[in-house]
């Protein structure tokens, strides 16, 4: 959908651009920018030793979370992985309280008990970031079971990495979802690496959508650096799910611009690969699209960028200033 010389197929008709869509298109760009600046801030705070443990950044993959979550409606639910800052923000979690959680503050989404790998905001349908690979896929099926049982019409979307397709919970969850025709959208973010290992060295199939055949499940590959392509694919999968036709497996092809975690410089990448993917960066690509289609001017886009940067900076300042949790709070929330 986005014209891009890098994309096989070249210029496709831009069916998404209708007069009324300008607000939506700019909103998609705003969200991607906010996530990008947010992750830059997380990295900066990490270097200042304000972020504990490890953190897994999302730069380069923003189009997947933003495109996908923009196709959902109120009441739908989302689960994601420890590389989940982007997805949680894409659902609408507040920037400041999300940052506060990463900083371990009382005002954090989880009161400072979860941290970077466990961002959760039930009020926006972000049911959890899971730090054990694949563990959330059965959970996502369960959320879909509730929707089906209670007849809410909601869909459950789960983001996960390419490495997840090799763990047992993936297969158990996809099979169960298919057998029970649950309204789930499984979105595999194929960023080419499972931690430090390239996909081909750990995975027998080249196309992860091939896995879907085992569960007689609808599947589609999509350009994960094209926010509108992702939005359209997830929209179709959501309609399929709401029609009672069951789950879909989407494979979004994208790239992790940073290493696996903070300590990983990504030395295993072949020369030129990063540069090639930076040229396909989802945010600059979408900027080009917005100007080429006359949706926004260069000046407007520069303003959008500045505003996003400022909003993230202010949210970060608030989060940094908030107090640490009270020590007694550690005894809360073990049981209801």
């Amino acid at each position: 959908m986005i014209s891009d010389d890098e994309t096989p197929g070249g210029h496709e008709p831009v069916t998404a651009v209708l007069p009324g869509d300008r607000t939506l298109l700019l909103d998609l760009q705003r969200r991607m920018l906010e996530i990008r600046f947010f992750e830059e801030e997380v990295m900066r705070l990490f270097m200042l030793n304000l972020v504990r443990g490890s953190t897994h950044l999302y730069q380069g993959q923003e189009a997947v979370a933003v495109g996908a979550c923009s196709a959902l409606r109120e009441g739908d639910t989302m689960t994601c992985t420890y590389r989940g800052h982007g997805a949680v923000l894409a659902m609408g979690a507040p920037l400041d309280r999300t940052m506060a959680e990463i900083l371990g503050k009382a005002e954090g989404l989880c009161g400072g008990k979860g941290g970077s790998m466990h961002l959760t905001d039930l009020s926006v349908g972000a049911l959890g970031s899971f730090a054990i690979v694949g563990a959330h896929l059965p959970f996502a099926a369960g959320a879909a079971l509730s929707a089906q049982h209670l007849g809410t019409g909601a869909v459950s979307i789960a983001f996960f990495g390419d490495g997840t397709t090799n763990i047992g919970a993936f297969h158990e969850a996809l099979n169960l979802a298919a057998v029970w025709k649950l309204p789930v959208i499984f979105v595999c973010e194929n960023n080419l690496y499972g931690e430090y290992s390239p996909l081909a060295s750990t995975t027998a199939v080249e196309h992860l959508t091939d896995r879907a055949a085992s569960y007689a499940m609808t599947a589609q590959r999509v350009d994960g650096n094209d926010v509108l392509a992702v939005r359209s694919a997830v929209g179709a999968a959501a309609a399929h799910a709401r029609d009672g036709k069951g789950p879909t497996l989407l494979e979004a092809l994208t790239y992790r611009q940073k290493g696996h975690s903070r300590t990983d410089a990504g030395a295993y990448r072949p020369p030129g690969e990063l540069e090639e993917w930076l040229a396909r960066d989802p945010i600059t690509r979408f900027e080009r699209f917005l100007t080429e289609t006359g949706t926004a001017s260069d000046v407007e886009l520069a303003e959008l960028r500045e505003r996003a940067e400022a909003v993230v900076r202010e949210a970060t300042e608030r989060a940094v200033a908030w107090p640490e949790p009270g020590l007694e709070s550690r005894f809360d929330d073990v049981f209801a």
Partner: protein
Amino acid sequence: MTELTYREGVIRALGEELERDDRVLLIGEDVGAAGGVFQATAGLFDRFGPRRVRDTPISEQAIVGCALGASVTGLRPVAEIMFADFAGVCFDQIANQLAKYRYMTGGQASVPVTIRMANGGGVGFAAQHSQAVENWFLNVPGLKICVPGTPADAYGLLKAAIRDDNPVLVFEHKQLYPSRGPVPDEDGVVELGRAEVVRTGSDLTVVATQLMRHRAVEAAEVLAGEGIDVEVVDPRTLVPLDLETIVESVAKTGRLVCVQECPPGGSWGATVVAAVVEEAWESLDLHPRLVSGDETPIPYAGSLEDAWLPSVERIAGELRDVAAE
């Protein structure tokens, strides 16, 4: 009161809770039309249909994870893990996901999940289908643990578990399914965290659950004939643990023996001993003692398994020693 088997107590509890709340549903391997491998869901599929009583694939991770996701979004699932030993297959889902979800999200949601599992040995299933699996989860905060030993407790604890807003593991002892006993017709819910003094006595306190509770009572009867007066306490739930009732009993008798069908290391009995030593050291006239299985996997052959599990004779012998010291 109605005389029911332990199995019938389970079925009655499930049926009543399915009846009273549409958000309750059963999921598990063969829990539907087949009625469960131990027949502990028999008849429920016919009464409530496939929407409420759902057969799953042989996928324990999916069963537990699905129950968790469903609980956070409005249902009250009761999942069955056929043999408790299969908790090993879904240990992550129970220990890392189910137990920690509420805590890690800062209490944003409650997690009303019940997991029923067939527990314990003595019926020749060998090392992977006979263990007292409740012990694996003692070191995982966030889980409640029920270990019913009678039909009334199988019924009443299960009802309490399903109504609880937390993850509750209910271990049903597979050798007790056919055992019979009275079950109240009304108000039969058994509050979690309330021990039962099964037999009162003044000379020593025995704490035991499930099959060992019954063997401890038999051993106590043997000793009664010898003039030794044994008190038997069944905690009924290990988390929460009714330490108060145990400590009260020890204050009276001065002697504590825990009888359990598992190896001693990392066991619930060791936990009770540690807690009593800490809380009621002055009450103890003698060091507490554990009567346990051996530090080996559970053997298959009948003679070997009988030797592994504490028998009435062995328990009586140990209690006699403690009383004599």
